[in-house]
Each structure stands twice: as structure tokens, then as C-alpha cells.
């Protein structure tokens, strides 16, 4: 079971505020409990491992407690928080509750914001939904939802957005490709005319065009995938530097490479064939006439 803090849409709600920085640890009668800080917090507050810091649950600094920085961690890259500065720390649950409890309400010492549950068959989203619904029925004051429904929706949207842009780019490129193929076909007008005049059939010429187009399209698609693979390094470096995160923004996976080739090759072949067909359907003599 892990404790998660939920943020509002426009701001990250901070559960605690670092108030003071200490350069050296003092030997308390009871050694202060440990806290882990994020790399970003370590750098921003100029801390180092072993420092003793004071944490409080509110900005007024009430009921502040001292903690020892036991270590630093790299926050798990969270696509939902990639543009947020990861100024955060991790405490033991009882320390956290001690910081945030309301003395007027004893029950707050045993209350959490969210409980995350991992089921034995974690990959099965329908079981998660079933469990979530049954939990809602048994505990009417608790709202539960399968994480697949909550978190993945954002990336489904982003995926659709990128796919739409890719589709538009393919359509635009296809228009240009067709224009180039038309020019190439015109360049070969006389050659095609002569071949037809000496008796070579349309089918043979078209086969040659298709095979040539296939070779060029495969080579072009492969080159495109290689260029994309090289570009992904630059894109990831740019965004990782910009947002100080280790998140991967772009990845040319084998599936994506295959999908690109599966789109590019037929488009290339068909464009060449269509352009050549506009020549082949004309009479041979009109092709060789100046």
C-alpha cells in the first residue's frame, strides 16, 4: 500500500513546507527520524545527505518537527507532473500523519487522502473496475476508481492528437510525392513511348515501375526511420533539459517503425504507379511525339 498525494488541476498541493535548513546534524537525545528528499529539492534548498531539516504541515510552521536527510531520490518521471518542479520529500507514514493531524480531531491521526490498491492480477483492468465498483457499494462514503480509467485517458488523448498530426503530415507529403512522381513520369515519357511502340506491354512497364517504386519506397522508409531514431535523441534531450526530468518524450519503438514503413511503402508504390498510369493510358505515338 502506498500513500499518494492528489493534486488539484492548476497547482500541486504541497503537504508540507520546508522551513529551515541546517548545515550540521546535532546529536539529539532521540535522533530525528529520516526523510528522503528529491534531487530537485536537494539542489534548490542547498541540502546534503545528513543535514537536519525542519518540516511543518502548514506555512505558519506550527508543530514543526526535525528530520534528518537520509538520502536523495530521483522522482519517478510522472507524465502528469512533468512540467512541475518536483520539490518533494518522502516520510514514513506515521511521521507524515504526525505532521498533518489536526489536534482538535483525533481521527485525523488515522486518515489518509488516497489509498492505492494493487490487485493480484494487476494487468487485468476489468477486474480492477469490478473491484472498484464493489468497494463503492460496500463503503458508500468512499469514491473509488480503477487507475486505468483515470490516468490513461490523458495519454489516450495525447496519442490521438499526435496520430492526427501524423496523419495530416502523411497527407501533405503524399501530395508532394505525387507531384514528384508526375515529374518523373513526364521525364520518362519518351522512353515509355518507345517501349510501347516496340511492343512492350503496359503490364510489363507497370511491373517495372512498381518494383522500382517499391525499392525506392523501402529505402526511403528505412532512411526515414533512421532519421527519426536520430531525431528522438535530440527531442528527448531538449525536453528533458527543459523540464529537468528523466521522462522519455519520444521513442521510436519497433512497432512504430514498422507502422511507419507500413504506411510509407504502399504510399510510395501507389504514387509511382498512379503517376505512371497517367502516361501508360495514353497512346504510344503521343508519348514520343515532341
Amino acid at each position, binding site marked *: 500500500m502506498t500513500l499518494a498525494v492528489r493534486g488539484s488541476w492548476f497547482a500541486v498541493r504541497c503537504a508540507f513546507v520546508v522551513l529551515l535548513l541546517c548545515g550540521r546534524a546535532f546529536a539529539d537525545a532521540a535522533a530525528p527520524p529520516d526523510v528522503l528528499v528529491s534531487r530537485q529539492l536537494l539542489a534548490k534548498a542547498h541540502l546534503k545527505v545528513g543535514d537536519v531539516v525542519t518540516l511543518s504541515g502548514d506555512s505558519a510552521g506550527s508543530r514543526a518537527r526535525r528530520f534528518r536527510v537520509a538520502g536523495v531520490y530521483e522522482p519517478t518521471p510522472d507524465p502528469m507532473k512533468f512540467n512541475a518542479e518536483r520539490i518533494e520529500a518522502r516520510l514514513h507514514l506515521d511521521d507524515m500523519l504526525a505532521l498533518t493531524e489536526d489536534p482538535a480531531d483525533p481521527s485525523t491521526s488515522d486518515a489518509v487522502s488516497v489509498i492505492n490498491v494493487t490487485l493480484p492480477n494487476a494487468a487485468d483492468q476489468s477486474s480492477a473496475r469490478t473491484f472498484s465498483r464493489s468497494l463503492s457499494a460496500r463503503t458508500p462514503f468512499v469514491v473509488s476508481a480503477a487507475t486505468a480509467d483515470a490516468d490513461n485517458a490523458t495519454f489516450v488523448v495525447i496519442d*490521438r492528437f499526435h496520430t492526427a498530426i501524423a496523419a495530416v503530415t502523411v497527407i501533405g507529403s503524399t501530395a*508532394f510525392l505525387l507531384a514528384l512522381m508526375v515529374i*518523373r513520369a513526364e521525364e520518362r515519357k519518351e522512353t515509355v513511348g518507345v517501349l510501347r511502340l516496340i511492343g512492350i506491354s503496359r503490364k510489363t512497364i507497370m511491373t517495372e515501375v512498381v518494383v522500382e517504386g517499391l525499392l525506392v519506397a523501402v529505402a526511403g522508409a528505412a532512411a526515414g526511420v533512421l532519421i527519426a531514431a536520430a531525431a528522438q535523441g535530440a527531442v528527448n534531450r531538449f525536453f528533458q533539459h527543459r523540464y529537468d526530468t528523466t521522462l522519455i518524450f519520444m521513442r521510436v519503438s519497433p512497432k512504430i517503425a514498422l507502422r511507419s514503413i507500413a504506411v510509407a511503402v504502399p504510399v510510395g508504390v501507389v504514387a509511382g504507379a498512379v503517376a505512371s498510369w497517367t502516361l501508360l493510358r495514353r497512346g504510344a505515338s503521343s508519348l514520343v511525339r515532341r
Partner: protein
Amino acid sequence: MTAFALAWRTARRYRARAVLAVVGVAVIGALNFDMLMLSRGLLLSFATMINSTGYDIRVAGASTLPLSRSPLTDATTLMNEVAALPEVDAVALIRTAGAVLAAPGRPPEGAELIGSTDPAGLGIWKQATGGDLTSAPNGATASAVISRPLAVRLGLSAGSTISVRVRIVDSLSAMPPVTLRVAGIAEFPFESQQASIVATTMDGFKAAYGGVLNDEASFMFARSRPPAGAEAAADAINRLRTDIHAFSNEQVIANFGRNAFTYFRQISVVLSATTAAFSMLLVATLLTVSVNQRLGEVAALRALGISRRRIASTLLWEAALLVGIGGVLALPLGELLATVLDKILRRMPGLPSGLHFFIFERNALVLHAAVLAVTAVVAAMYPVWLAVHLPIAQTLRQEVS
């Protein structure tokens, strides 16, 4: 015959490739135009939303984030003090809490309960159907205005009643449900499209807590009184207490611009640059192949004494025609594409329903035109160089052999 006329004739002569090139430029240009709209779309949309609330100042608990909901303590006293300022015309307190709606035969549904001292709900909701919070024929039951998705899901309309149980965070205590009468249905532009919202008066909000509630507010709206202006009013409010922070709408918008959705600004810059470079490459390739096909013609023209300048300007006009016509067609195509892309992106969970990603502004149009102009010139550079530097005699020999 002018260079433009020659270029036009060339485009007409090679109609198929010209039409295809124009279509290609139009499609890629539409994408580029959309990315230019995307770069500031969210900010403009948010600014429109904020500026149409009827208030021009937002007050939060002492925090550097204007849209945070760190609570304002002694809220009533603060409201009175702010209302008494000569720079301030109107004030409203807003309080929010998580709630659960109980309906017979249905699983409990999470909702957000909003309490406002402004019965018209300025700044929070826009009335769609029914009445606002002032219409309460039965004084014993507080009125509520609910969001449309909630109304549709639970089959509610004006006159219906709903049972709301407020959720108390960090506590095992539970409040009894309170019955609210639905006065009307409203749009909540700052909440997500499918959000379940129940907005009521501050008395109704207090009733949900059993009538016992600390004097806090999630945030406060204020409207400046002319001629003071929002900045002066915000400064005056900030001087009242040290544990609050007042932001003018401009400051809220500026903060939004710095912190929210920067991914889309970045991606729009990357995609704008990529599509522009892509267009340049494609037009340049097309023109180069076209020139290579006509080298004999070009060499003959040079041999006849047609100047390099005339040949260069003809090619530049060819590029300008392709890119120019395509660029103009890109505008309506871009608007259509933007509608589709906006629809896709607005499905993002938690996105305020009033927010749009693609907003037309004149700057985007000007930038689009500038990008096209640069594209045409840069794309023509290599083919022009090719044409004006080709060795005339050698080319003529090659054409004959």
C-alpha cells in the same frame, strides 16, 4: 512578358504537379497555422475565461500560486474589509469541498460542492437553464445549481432534489446528507467537461456541515472600482493582511502562461519549426526537379540573352505562386483541422470545459504569412542558383546528345 506571367504560365502548363504541390503546401501549411494558434491558444482562451467572470481580482491564501486553494481564514471579516476599500466595487467568497451524491439505486457519485456568497455565481458558473440561487420558494431547503453532466447522468432538472453528503478530508467523521433543491443547470467553465458540480449559497454550504463551519473560504473574487483599476485594488487588498495574496486577472493570466500546459507551447514550437522546414524541403525538391527537367530551356534562354535576373525572378515567382496559393488555402483548412484537433485535446480529463487549445489571433496569421514568405524564398534558393549558374554551352551540348 513579366516574370510573374511566365511563372503563372509554367504553373498552368504543368498543371498536375502545380495542383499537387499547392495541395501539399495547403495541408502542411494548415498544420503549421494550427501550431501557431496552439502556441498561445490556451493562454488566450484562459484569458477570455478569466476576463469574462465579472471579477478582475482573485484573492488566495498566502501562496505564490493564484489558482491555488490555500484557505483564507477569518473570511467574513476579510470580505467586509475588502468590500469597504474605496478601490473595490464588489466581493464574493467561494468555498469548495468534496462531496458524495446519494441517489436511490445508484452507487454513490463523487461531486464537488461549491458555496458562493454571489447568488448569480459570477466567476464560477454561467446559468444555462432554470433559475439561480436566489429563486428559493421553499425557504427550508437551500437551492443549488448543478452541472449539466450531473443533471444528465442523474436525470435531474429544475425542481428536483438531491442528497449531498460533504466529505471531510483527513477525518473519520462523517456528516449527515443534506437535501438541496435544484434551481437550475449551469455551465462551469473552470471545471472539467464531465465534472459533477453542485453549487449552492454559503448558507446551503454551511448546512451541509451541520450548520457548524469554521470561517474560511477557498478563495475570494473582487471587482475593482473605476478609475482605480485591478492593480491598485489588488495592492490595497494585499496591504490589509500578510496571510493573503491578491492577484489581478493579468497576473493570474501571466502565471498561467508561465506554468500551465507549457508542453503544448513547446510542442507547437517544435512542430511549427518542423513543418516549416518540411515545406521548404518539399517545395525546394519540387522546384529543383522541375528546373532539372527544363535545363535545356533555361540554357537556351540564357543563350538568347535572357538575363539571370529574369530567370531567377521567374523561379522565385513560381515558388511564390505554389506557396502563396497553398498558404491561402491553408487558412480555411487550418481552421477545420483546428476544430478537429481541439475536439481531440478537449477530451483530456480534468480540463476546464471553457478552455480551448486553438484560438485564432491576428499574430498567428501574420506569423503564418511570414513563415510562408521565408519558405518560398528559401525553397527557391537552390533551384535559382542551379538555373543561373548552369554552364550554358555544356548544357546545350548535353541536351542535344
